[in-house]
């Protein structure tokens, strides 16, 4: 993919829509967004003010899409955006923004700044200003099928082990079942126990499900780097597989941006609605709980709190379900301050953790989460996103905090009521 400055500016222009224009028109430079952004609050550097991260795009909007701006451009009295500025803005747009959307919640005039950052990344990538780590991840996603290079044999090996341990089959490429499960590379590589946990839960609840050997990857690097064509291709693979297998639902696993990509951006990327529904694993587990198909026993006694992954809660709309589930298996569940849709980002989403250059600021940003935890002193931290988990572990370790980070799905699996397994029953 050849990048050029011109392509970048054209891409900015393509991204303009009525919301973007309304947002830029309304900004009164009050700076409230800075106080909502953990990259600002933990560094005190005004350049991290969210609206500032959009400055090149704002100038393109002003010079191309506002009467006064167009007039000024024609008269030669406006300052066009330069390639050097895009270089300068690369770290602001990619290293110090996770698309968490907290700024979008506090802007008094209603600007959805994260919406605009997502669009700005399209122009940044087109002009060749995306971080190396993300470029590599995206290339691998396209050519290998996984941003981390996870190939089918690796997944098959993991599956074989799960089958042996649990004494049941993990269905692969089974047609006509209700659910097709996606997995993120992060889970397959760093937290593969998730596969075993899901298998146990689905067996317990009598769910008919499958994994597709052609499209098992949930992560969508395309939306993180900001290249919609690539993001669309990755979604198409999932759609093709889901359609071929004639499933009713596709399950998005414990990964934040994967959910955003497949649930909310997907149909818009490929230009048509799906002929299946998408559920986040937490939504499914909660449905199973309310319908009585998920029976748990015993409770964790340690003091647990829940970290809301931004793309699942604030930007995704799955907020109550993890809490309902945790209350079933936790005797001492305590909310951290500002929990729910106003929760603070872990600091590593949106491609930040894939970007080595951002390591230092990522760990600085984590201090915001540390401050939340310091107020409630939990024994353990629960979340539902593999990327958040690694960042939380990293941040906690860096700050010498002795708190394990746990997966909600795995906790549920550990508390399943054992049912008699009928001989030869297909899980």
């Amino acid at each position, binding site marked *: 993919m050849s990048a050029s400055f011109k392509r970048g500016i054209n891409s900015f222009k393509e991204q*303009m*829509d*009525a*919301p973007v*224009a*309304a*947002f830029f*028109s*309304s*900004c*009164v*430079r*009050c*700076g*409230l967004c*800075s*106080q*909502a952004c953990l990259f*600002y609050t933990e560094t*005190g550097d*005004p*350049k991290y*003010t969210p*609206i*500032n991260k959009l400055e090149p795009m704002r100038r393109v909007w002003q010079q191309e*899409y*506002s*009467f*006064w701006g167009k007039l000024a451009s024609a008269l030669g009295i406006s300052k066009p955006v330069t390639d050097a500025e895009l270089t300068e803005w690369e770290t602001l747009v990619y290293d110090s923004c996770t698309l968490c959307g907290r700024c*979008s*919640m*506090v*802007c*008094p*005039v*209603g*600007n*959805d700044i994260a*919406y605009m950052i997502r669009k700005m990344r399209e122009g940044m990538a087109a002009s060749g200003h995306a971080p190396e780590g993300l470029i590599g991840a995206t290339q691998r996603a396209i050519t290998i099928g996984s941003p981390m290079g996870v190939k089918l044999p690796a997944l098959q090996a993991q599956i074989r082990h799960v089958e042996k341990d649990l004494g049941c089959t993990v269905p692969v490429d089974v047609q006509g079942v209700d659910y097709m499960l996606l997995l993120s590379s992060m889970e397959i590589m760093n937290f593969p126990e998730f596969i075993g946990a899901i298998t146990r839960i689905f067996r317990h609840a009598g769910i008919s499900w499958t994994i597709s050997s052609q499209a098992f990857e949930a992560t969508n690097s395309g939306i993180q780097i900001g290249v919609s064509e690539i993001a669309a291709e990755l979604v198409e693979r999932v759609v093709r597989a889901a359609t071929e297998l004639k499933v009713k639902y596709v399950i998005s696993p414990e990964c934040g941006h994967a959910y955003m990509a497949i*649930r*909310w*951006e*997907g*149909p*818009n990327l490929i*230009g*048509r*609605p*799906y002929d299946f*529904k*998408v559920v986040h694993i937490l939504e499914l587990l909660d449905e199973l709980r309310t319908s009585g198909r998920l029976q748990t026993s015993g409770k964790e006694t340690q003091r647990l709190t829940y970290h809301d992954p931004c793309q699942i809660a*604030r*930007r*995704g*709309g799955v*907020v109550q379900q993890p809490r309902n589930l945790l209350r079933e298996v936790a005797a001492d569940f305590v909310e951290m*301050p*500002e929990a729910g*849709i*106003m929760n603070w980002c872990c600091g590593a989403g949106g491609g930040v953790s894939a970007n080595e250059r951002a390591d230092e600021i990522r760990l600085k940003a984590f201090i915001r989460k540390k401050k939340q935890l310091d107020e409630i002193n939990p024994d353990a931290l629960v979340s539902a996103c593999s990327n958040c988990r690694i960042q939380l572990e990293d941040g906690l370790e860096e700050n010498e905090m002795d708190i394990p980070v746990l997966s909600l799905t795995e906790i549920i699996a550990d508390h399943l009521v054992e049912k008699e397994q009928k001989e030869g029953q297909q899980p």
Partner: protein
Amino acid sequence: MTETELLMWARGPALQVATVIFLLGIMVRILEILVLGRKANLAEARGSAVAGGLRTIVTRSFPDRGTLQRSTFNIVAGYVFHTGFFVVLFLFAPHILVFRDLLGFGWPSIPTPIIDATTLVTIITLLAVLLHRVQDKVMRFLSRFQDYLAWFVTILPLVTGYLAFHRIGLTPPTLIAIHILSVELLMVVFPFTKLMHAFTLFMARYYNGAIAGYKGVNS
């Protein structure tokens, strides 16, 4: 030009030109936004975009507790000067008379001493707001020429109005002419600056709420 001629000009041709620029300018700015359009959302909705949009127009006026704690001055001062400005603009008897001329109807006014006090409070708050803008490192970093221009054209009518009402410094007709001219300055500058937020914030809040509401989130 005599003071009477100045006043007649301010109330006549100048006001006409200012009004045309004001109304046309606002219309152009709003149309510029609408004409860009929005793609339809093909994802399956969880909630209502329209309900979300309308809700956020209202609820975004009430900051969450954390934001209020972190940005207390900005929020409180913002409310004080906006409220004060609108109270003085819409509830001062002589202003209501102007509106009655324009619109064909008026409404009750509030006692002048209250308007007077409100004007002073608003002016003082605006001065504090300017001080904050230059002292606060984020605001100083973000501020451009038009932020200071917008501030200036907003405070000017309040100051000139106060001076005119109390007949300080110059003859009453001159003071009133200056006051009217300062209002016309505001009107003419309005569509070219962030002051447009007075209208576009309804659109921005709506879009924000609609995007979130579609996903079932109250933003």
